[in-house]
């Protein structure tokens, strides 16, 4: 039953799933609470465009993906600040234009590259040792940053005016959050793929949102769902020969709908005496 642990590719896949699931679902709490779901989606496609360009120009994919992802996230943030157009329209334009870039870059390649499509759909079982090290390293950086700034990020998500009035550098932290989203998307590309990484950011946190009224508890539940479903997705994909990314996302979706129809959503509501 546990013979899969003997395979190095499975060890790498499980470690990667643990970190990607955990980081995406923690950061996802801020994405959901701050209403940045569309920015997450746009960033994923921009990062994929960066990967496609890197294969076209023979440059390191990680660097290109991070550059494209961060620039798109910041552009979306600036558009939100300016508020000259409705945010869904602005992000929609960014979203489609970066996807157009990705398709253009792929079209300009002289040969078909299966590796590029690996970043679109994800392939956690083919994560190499060096890729896993980068994913773990970036995860630790993101976790450390979240630990350092979580109280301020919660405050901004709840009440930006009050946070600013309290002397919290709200704008700086908003752009830090956008940067973290971009880096998280990039580190998840190989494992989950540009098409589905958005779901990893969104679904565990949205499920947790249904189950509690407490910020702390929402965060813990989201992280637990993210890790358990990611690791389970890898195991199911190994046992039943399924693609791991969609399996993980569909597991998360199932939990989301279960949470949605649970009769007693949002517990911990003691009657005031």
């Amino acid at each position, binding site marked *: 039953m546990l013979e899969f642990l003997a395979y190095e590719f499975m060890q790498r896949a499980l470690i990667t799933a643990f970190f990607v699931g955990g980081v995406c679902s923690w950061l996802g709490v801020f994405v959901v609470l701050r209403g940045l779901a569309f920015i997450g989606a746009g960033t994923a496609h921009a990062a994929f465009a960066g990967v496609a360009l890197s294969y076209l120009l023979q440059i390191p994919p990680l660097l290109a993906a991070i550059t494209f992802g961060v620039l798109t996230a910041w552009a979306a943030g600036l558009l939100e600040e300016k508020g000259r157009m409705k945010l869904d329209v602005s992000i929609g334009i960014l979203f489609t234009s970066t996807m157009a870039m990705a398709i253009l870059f792929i079209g300009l390649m002289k040969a078909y590259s299966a590796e590029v499509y690996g970043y679109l759909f994800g392939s956690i079982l083919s994560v190499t040792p060096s890729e896993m090290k980068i994913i773990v390293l970036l995860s630790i950086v993101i976790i450390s940053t979240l630990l350092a700034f979580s109280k*301020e990020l919660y*405050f901004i998500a*709840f009440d930006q*005016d009050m946070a*600013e*009035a*309290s*002397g919290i*550098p709200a704008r700086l932290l908003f752009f830090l959050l956008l940067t973290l989203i971009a880096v998280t998307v990039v580190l998840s590309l190989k494992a989950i793929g540009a098409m589905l990484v958005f779901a990893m950011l969104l679904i565990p946190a949205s499920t947790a949102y249904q189950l509690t*009224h407490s910020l702390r508890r929402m965060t813990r539940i989201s992280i637990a769902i993210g890790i358990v479903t990611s690791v389970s997705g890898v195991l199911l994909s190994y046992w039943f020969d399924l693609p791991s990314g969609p399996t993980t996302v569909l597991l998360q979706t199932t939990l989301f709908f279960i949470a949605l129809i649970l009769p007693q959503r949002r517990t911990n509501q003691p009657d005031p005496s």
Partner: protein
Amino acid sequence: MLKNLEEEQPRHVIAFSNATYNLTHTTALKEINLDINEGEFVGIIGPNGSGKTTILRAILGLLLPQTGTMQIFDCACENLRCHHRARIGYLPQKGKIDRNFPITVIETVLMGRYGVRGLFRQIGKKDKAIALQALEDVGMQNFQNYPFGQLSGGQQQRIFIARALAQQPQVLLLDEPTTGIDTTTQHTILELVRRLHRELQLTILLVTHDINLISPFVDRLVLLNTRLFANGNPRDVLQYKILSQVYGDEIIVTDNGYVIGGDSHHE
């Protein structure tokens, strides 16, 4: 003799001197000269767009004067994170808060400690004790684990006042604290603010559009209309000849005082 003189002089905690504040396309406050003394309860009134909220944002350091100066505790506080700002508690206008945000009452009040603690410093037992005391001060100590979104409008305002108190402020800025709640609760909230003013010796600035509701509670009324139009005892400020110059035809005299026609207060 010198000591007696010092005791007689009230200490200015906030001092505007010829201060002008411009927003993107307009002058929000022009040449404001205003001193707020330690321990005062001051009401700020004025029509829509008169600069009521702007003056609070200026005190908070979210806006800097284009000309003139504004000092808090004798400090210009041009740095947003100046330690003097931590001595100012703030209750923003209602309206931007998501009622479904997953947050408990105690988590909300603890946010008042975040600015005091500063970056990289986590909230500890001492902060929790201060937050619980703030909840007790507003009479909501039994609600600490209750979902914030399920409280009534009046209860939510109490929680926000507790959050401001958790900063352990010397000055409390309240922006339309009675908006969107029923008349009985409005009085309860103002009674609470008056009690906190007395018991905690707080200096309070309260912005409101409801000139009749606030006047019995405050020591002084400030009437704004971009410029500082009137400043003094509520009885002296609430004169028809003064109000009609600012509100124009909108001012209506009734048995219960003055009514501002078509009153919606948001700036």
